[in-house]
């Protein structure tokens, strides 16, 4: 009789155990479904690159779709009808466009995986300010890439001044803009690691170890960081495109 009792107890536990295994399998596959991420981008875009870095640093799986901007896919146009640009991150079929909006979305949806913004509201405000500042000063970078022979010196000076503010006020003595670890600010300034190619194309150095020592050092440290190192853009491959872009910008100016 005891055997029969034990037998039924074991059976009950086996049933319960099987049930729990089944439930956890269903939940985990639902979670995988729920976390379906797709990123529409281009290899060359620094705005896409920031999002890639954020996803990689957070260890998030995603599908990547390389767009041909001269022939945009119907999907891209459907997901970003307002701007028709990359990057667009689609999460559970819900699209998010604009790189800084996407970065904040990623941070808020997965806050515990490799936090990329500080917890303190004031520090967060400063991070957001520096991101906005960097993007607002994009015109200076454009001017540099499109500068004429005569305008080269001035364009370089203007850019140097902006870099100096970034170095002195935003970076300071910290290893990264985010402190001892990376933050969204580092990701948004990460395009600076490709800047050497632009200097080559224009033919003048702006960011060097003597002109901007701390920013230069940041650039080296940033490139070495796990998550960033394996996901740097192929700047050598982009070099011919940059030459063409500069030619085009110079010709449209005249």
């Amino acid at each position: 009789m005891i055997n029969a009792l034990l037998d039924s107890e074991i059976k009950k536990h086996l049933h319960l155990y099987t049930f729990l295994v089944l439930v956890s399998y269903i939940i985990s596959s639902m979670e995988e479904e729920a976390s379906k991420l797709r990123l529409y981008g281009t290899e060359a875009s620094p705005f896409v690159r920031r999002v890639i870095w954020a996803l990689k640093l957070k260890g998030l799986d995603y599908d990547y779709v390389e767009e041909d901007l001269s022939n945009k896919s119907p999907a891209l146009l459907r997901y970003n009808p307002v701007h028709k640009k990359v990057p667009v991150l689609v999460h559970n079929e819900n699209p998010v466009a604009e790189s800084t909006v996407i970065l904040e979305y990623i941070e808020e949806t997965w806050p515990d995986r490799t936090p990329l913004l500080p917890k303190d509201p004031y520090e967060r405000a400063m991070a957001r300010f520096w991101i906005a500042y960097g993007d607002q000063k994009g015109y200076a970078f454009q001017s540099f890439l499109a500068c004429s022979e005569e305008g080269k010196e001035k364009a370089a000076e203007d850019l140097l001044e902006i870099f100096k503010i970034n170095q002195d006020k935003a970076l300071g003595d910290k290893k990264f803009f985010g402190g001892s670890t990376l933050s969204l600010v580092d990701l948004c300034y990460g395009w600076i690691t490709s800047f050497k190619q632009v200097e080559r194309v224009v033919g003048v150095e702006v960011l060097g170890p003597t002109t901007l020592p701390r920013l230069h050092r940041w650039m080296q440290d940033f490139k070495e960081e796990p998550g960033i190192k394996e996901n740097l853009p192929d700047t050598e491959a982009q070099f011919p495109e940059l030459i063409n872009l500069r030619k085009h910008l110079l010709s449209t100016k005249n």
Partner: protein
Amino acid sequence: MSEVKLFGAWFSPYVKRVEMALNLKGVEYEYIEEDLKNKSPLFLQYNPITKLVPVLVHNGKPIFESTVILEYIDETWEGPSIFPKDPYDRAMSRFWAKFVEDKCSDPLWKACWAAGEEREKAKKEAEEALKILENEIKGKKFFGGDNIGLVDYVANYIAFWIPLLQDVVGFHILTQDKFPNIWKWCYELCNDSFVKKNLPEKEKVSSGLKRAVETGSLY
């Protein structure tokens, strides 16, 4: 007891949206009017980087950029929300706030002040953007839904300042005819009992804009 200071200019939509946010949360603050032609040393000490208003100083620490300040206020003080709670809704709010600032406010402003080809170019840009915005506000009282939200704060400029500027320069892009939904929203926003208290006097703004048109200088 926290100490809150706001450096501003009475006519600035960027400053007014911050004041609105502080008042929404019931925050006590000291308001300091800055003469933008002759900025005070104290102000420049707090904001040597952009040298622009608004600047919020909380317990001695300065914050700049109106949308950054709005988010800081929402995160720091209890009370009704400016941003939605859900991450996706927050992303949508941020997206539309950016769209309003970059694609609507800028070209609308430029079109009013520019002339000739530049004016036509800005007008075209503004109209394209307003068409999109017209669709976005359709069926809603405010961009934030039943209550004002981030996008309404950022679009305060379009609701209050742009109609006045259009009248002063005699060049109208945003009209009831062309954009009836946006026009209705402008009315709802400017006549909302809370928002009303956080707008400058119409006459004062109009006079200021007239003076700016005559002198060619904004301040």
